[in-house]
């Protein structure tokens, strides 16, 4: 198969659950060789999280794990044992990148601080993806997606819409593990940046990624508005004033439609047949529209409620007004768009069978995203990695297995 | 599947390694329904012990585990978690027998002492197989095959030919976990006795089995000889029974031959062609033979060395003198005898494939020893047991899984 963008890049992933593994996945999907290190026995925590086929939990059938770890080699290793520590050092010695998401103090206690590892391998890029980073007062805080999401401010501006008493509702975390995904994504960008540097300078770097910052970084426009306009936000119905894109109920569902900007407003009013109310000066420019948005929305919705989602979308598309139905993932999976873009691939996994996975979100013309291998079974590549690459004998494997090292 | 002798018994096996599981296996092979409770993640530590196919360690391919757990249902459960403890008690409610092999203090600390469990199920037979039993100064000692074997006196009297200076050699452990297996075997036997006691009373029992005692019990004749006759059980060759049971070298191997009484000796001498040395006073009776045995053995061996193992065995058996070649397991696996008895069975296992296992040690004419299912994969029957029998929902399963309870 033709070379991929990251072919030849050797990555060791000493990470658990979502953030680190997502970073590793992004590298692996583009051809990097990622050796995932899991603790013997339970393995990656994601193995215990669903979804599971028929809802029957099985460590090799977790949808979350399968998605996050396709294209990786999997080994088991207890780095807390002397042997395990030695082996991890050997792996790092041969690697270009180490992706880890362990508590900073633990990493230091185990003797894997970047300083030591860079002595073993001066070219090593070490990416540490942790909830609050390697420095600062919160660095040793224990955290999970919920905590980080709230610590970033995202939960607070996440709208509480369509519930009674929006203000009575607590701030809202995003679905799934958005915080961990965003942290892993930032980690992948930072890692590649460091890799490019070390190609030039020949020396590695320690990349310190903070999940709180990765999420706060998503908030940059709010932060800018706060910094410059001193704006603050209450958790009202969500839509910040003036953000005049909104969802509209139709006869058979909902669409999300954007018509606040002058251009789209004109096109959309035309599409609705230039209703009289639209002539009212309440709606003449985007500032006034923003002030009277509730009225505007009500009028538009009156029109959309009489029409099906399909009609509204067709009308909007025809007049080039941004609009789409509010979909379930099911609708996405079955959409003509997904089909036309080959957005889903069947991946066959020995234990989980053939399941549809979403592919990479971008297409590289020369070096395509590719499924080389399904997610590894726990310890599936112990023999390949430890015997074939590090030169241990099988007899020694059995000793290490019984000793709980692998 | 025909009815088996123990088909009506329901057993929970909360045990790992060899002794407890071997006890459970012996009962499962005769039809008892054994539900094996394993720690989530690593499972039974026997999964880490070889032999492994091609010597590649794999938790589902351990020969030790496969053999010891054939015919059992397997569930995962962390009884140390509170949810786990609740679930465990519900398993106990429905069981006739609990087999466990944990240190007494641990069991008590977890609240699973017999006193507590009999409140849950008064008819419960609880079999505790531990290193040194439930009482006495060593009751919390930890052990393994080696330690128990030596603590029983068996190692000390285990003979030691063929080494230059026996006094320099340490006492000798028996091969292949014999010390653990004897404990499991004795455990199964005493468990059944408690089942009989229950028939009369409707009440359960606590079976307190000490591995040390199970092994000491194997040496009862030596003990008797010592206590009564003060027979000196030294570790040298005298430990043997000169002129009675003996290893002889032949031209192409070794045989083991026994002349247990005068008639056998006479038949054997005849088989050797009544050599003159055998007619001399020196070997007239057993007592004399014992005294002059070094000479006697030399003479016999002179004769056997000129013959092949096959010849010697044929001649001995022709004159009804017990004698067999000293085999490796290879010869026994391929022997006409065991083939004819149908002793070995091929079992197909999802992960390990087809392997030949030793089968029944005895034949029950009406209720045969039987392979009903291969050893369970880790947690293979969680859904069947927890949902099917204890009435948990699949969602409960996914929650318990993610919480690490199962």
């Amino acid at each position: 198969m033709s070379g991929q963008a990251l072919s030849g890049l050797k990555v060791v992933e000493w990470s658990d659950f979502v953030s680190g593994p997502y970073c590793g996945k992004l590298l692996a999907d583009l051809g990097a060789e990622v050796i995932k290190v899991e603790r013997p026995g339970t393995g990656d925590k994601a193995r215990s999280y669903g979804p599971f086929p028929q809802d029957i939990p099985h460590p090799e059938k977790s949808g979350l794990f399968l998605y996050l770890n396709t294209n990786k080699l999997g080994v088991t290793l207890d780095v807390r044992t002397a042997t395990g520590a030695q082996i991890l050092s050997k792996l790092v010695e041969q690697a270009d990148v180490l992706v880890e998401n362990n508590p900073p103090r633990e990493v230091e206690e185990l003797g894997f601080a970047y300083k030591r590892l860079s002595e073993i391998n001066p070219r090593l890029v070490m990416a540490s993806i942790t909830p609050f980073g390697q420095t600062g007062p919160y660095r040793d805080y224990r955290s999970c997606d919920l905590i980080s999401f709230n610590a970033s401010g995202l939960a607070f501006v996440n709208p509480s819409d369509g519930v009674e008493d929006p203000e009575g509702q607590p701030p809202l975390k995003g679905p799934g593990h958005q915080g961990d995904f965003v942290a892993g994504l930032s980690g992948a960008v930072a890692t590649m940046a460091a890799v490019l540097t070390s190609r030039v300078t020949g020396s590695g770097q320690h990349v310190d990624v903070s999940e709180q910052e990765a999420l706060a970084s998503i908030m940059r426009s709010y932060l800018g508005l706060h910094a410059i306009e001193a704006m603050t936000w209450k958790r009202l119905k969500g839509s910040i004033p003036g953000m005049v894109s909104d969802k509209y109920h139709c006869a058979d569902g909902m669409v999300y439609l954007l018509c606040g900007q002058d251009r789209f407003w004109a096109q959309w009013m035309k599409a609705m047949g230039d209703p009289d109310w639209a002539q009212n000066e309440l709606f003449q420019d985007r500032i006034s529209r923003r002030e009277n948005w509730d009225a505007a929305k009500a009028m538009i919705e009156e029109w959309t409620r009489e029409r099906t989602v399909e009609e509204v979308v067709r009308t909007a598309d025809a007049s080039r007004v941004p609009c789409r139905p509010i979909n379930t993932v099911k609708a996405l999976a079955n959409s003509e768009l997904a089909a036309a873009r080959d957005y889903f691939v069947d991946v066959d996994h020995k234990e989980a069978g053939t399941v549809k996975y979403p592919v990479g979100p971008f297409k590289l013309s020369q070096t395509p995203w590719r499924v080389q291998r399904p997610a590894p079974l726990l310890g599936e590549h112990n023999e390949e990695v430890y015997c074939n690459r590090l030169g241990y004998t099988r007899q020694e494997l059995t000793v290490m297995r019984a000793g709980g090292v692998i | 599947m025909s009815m088996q002798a123990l088909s009506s018994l329901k057993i929970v096996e909360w045990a790992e390694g060899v002794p407890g599981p071997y006890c459970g296996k012996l009962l499962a092979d005769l039809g008892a329904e054994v539900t094996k409770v394993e720690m989530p993640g690593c499972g039974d530590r026997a999964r880490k012990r070889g032999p492994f196919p091609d010597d590649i360690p794999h938790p589902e391919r351990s020969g030790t585990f496969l053999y010891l757990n054939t015919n059992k249902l397997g569930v995962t459960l962390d009884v140390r978690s509170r949810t786990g403890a609740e679930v465990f008690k519900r398993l106990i409610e429905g069981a006739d027998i609990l087999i466990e092999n944990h240190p007494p203090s641990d069991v008590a600390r977890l609240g699973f002492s017999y006193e507590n469990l009999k409140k849950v199920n008064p008819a419960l037979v609880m079999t505790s197989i531990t290193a040194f039993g439930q009482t006495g100064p060593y009751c919390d000692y930890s052990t393994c095959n080696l330690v128990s074997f030596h603590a029983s006196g068996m190692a000390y009297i285990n003979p030691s030919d063929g080494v230059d200076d026996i006094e320099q050699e340490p006492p000798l452990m028996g091969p292949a976990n014999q010390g653990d297996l004897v404990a499991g075997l004795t455990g199964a036997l005493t468990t059944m006795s408690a089942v009989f006691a229950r028939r009369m009373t409707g009440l359960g029992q606590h079976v307190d089995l000490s591995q040390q005692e199970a092994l000491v019990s194997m040496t009862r004749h030596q003990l008797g000889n010592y206590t009564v006759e003060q027979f000196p059980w030294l570790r040298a060759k005298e430990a043997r029974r000169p002129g009675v049971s003996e290893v002889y070298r032949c031209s192409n191997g070794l045989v083991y031959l026994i002349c247990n009484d005068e008639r056998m000796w006479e038949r054997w001498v005849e088989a050797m062609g009544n050599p003159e040395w055998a007619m001399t006073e020196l070997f007239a009776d057993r007592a004399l033979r014992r005294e002059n045995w070094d000479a006697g053995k030399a003479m016999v061996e002179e004769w056997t060395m000129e013959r092949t193992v096959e010849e010697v065995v044929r001649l001995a058996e022709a004159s009804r003198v017990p004698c067999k070649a000293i085999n490796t397991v290879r010869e026994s696996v391929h022997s006409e005898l065991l083939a004819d008895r149908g002793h070995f069975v091929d079992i197909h296992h999802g992960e390990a494939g087809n392997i030949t296992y030793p089968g029944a040690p005895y034949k029950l004419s009406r209720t045969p020893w039987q392979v009903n299912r291969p050893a369970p994969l880790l947690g293979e029957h969680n859904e069947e047991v927890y949902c099917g029998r204890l009435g948990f929902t699949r969602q409960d399963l996914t929650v318990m899984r993610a919480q690490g309870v199962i």
Partner: protein
Amino acid sequence: MSTGGGTQNTVQKLPLEGIRVIDFTAVWAGPHVTQWLAVMGAEVIKIESRLRPDMIRAYWNLQSTGHSINSEFAEFNYGKKGCTLNMTQPRAREIVRELVGISDVVTENFGGAVMDRWGLGYAELAAIKPDIIMYAGSGFGRTGPYKEFPAFAGIAEAFAGLCHLNGYPGGDPRPMATFGYADVTSAEHGALAILAALHHREETGEGQYIDLSMTEVVSSLLFQPIMDYTMNGRVQGRQGNRDSVMAPHSCYRCRGDDEWVAIAVSSDEEWRSFCDAMGNPAWTGDERFRDALGRWRNQDELDALIGDWTRNHAHYEVAEMLQRVGVMAGPSLKMEEVIQDRHLRERGFHLDVDQPGLGTWCLAALPWRLSDVPPGNYEHAPELGEHNEYVFGELLSMSAEEIARLEEEQVIY
């Protein structure tokens, strides 16, 4: 036997009370089966005759007493009743049939199909008592090419591959623990099979025939080397005290005369505790020993160094030091030490019983302890024919004259 569901006050009964066993077995393998049944409360009637006493009675009689008892016989036959019947006499076989009629189990371990020749095969016995359970223990099984061959433990161990595995690396193969290992393990398998059969009889009223092969018992106890062979074609050799994965894992010389202690370390944690217990001598810091793999690779040197430490202590002392820090260790006990071992004593494993012919002596109990039943039936071993009166008089209600006549005719003999 009494049908189940009794009440609390019967709790003091032994499990097999009401079960009667007619026992033709001799030597070790058979008698140990019925000994288990006897201790559990079954009434075991051992049938011998002066023409055919249990060879162990005659054997190994190191001190001549006026009795037909020696220590070894006693160790395998306590708790039983003994009667004498000359089975070469048709009348004797008649009497046996009568006994079978009022019994639950018949056991034998002859060198061949002796029972068949006596007309006492399973078919005949089942005709007399349909739910009878018959146990036949033999070296190679009651079917197959060797069914008529005599066999002893060592033979079965040799044939099944145990001898080949038992010994020091480089040493010679030998049967386990001097002799009788296959006998005693087979006996326990046999007793288990009988209990299972009794259980089935309780459920269904069906009896059955149990055919136990010592060779197969040994084979089933060797599943690890056997499966290594069937999986990988490897034939394991003698490993002494070594383990396939643990190190250190051996037996080390201690201070006293030929005193040894067994030590096994299975993890890095245990290794650290072990080093602490030894006071961390310099060598424990050695690179070679820092991890499980290194220790396993270098266990020769390791064993030597550990031996240097253990040599300065008594074996019990080492065991206690190490157990205190959670390291597996135990003294390698000699017979006399086993008998004096304070732990076994405290648990009451050794019982002092009065044995006619031996006086009061200390026997090894069975490793059998139930919470709510008496310690078990540990009656002294029977003299030859000691219970003839009970068996023929009480059980078969023969008159004294009849018994006398049968003795004259050498039927009871």
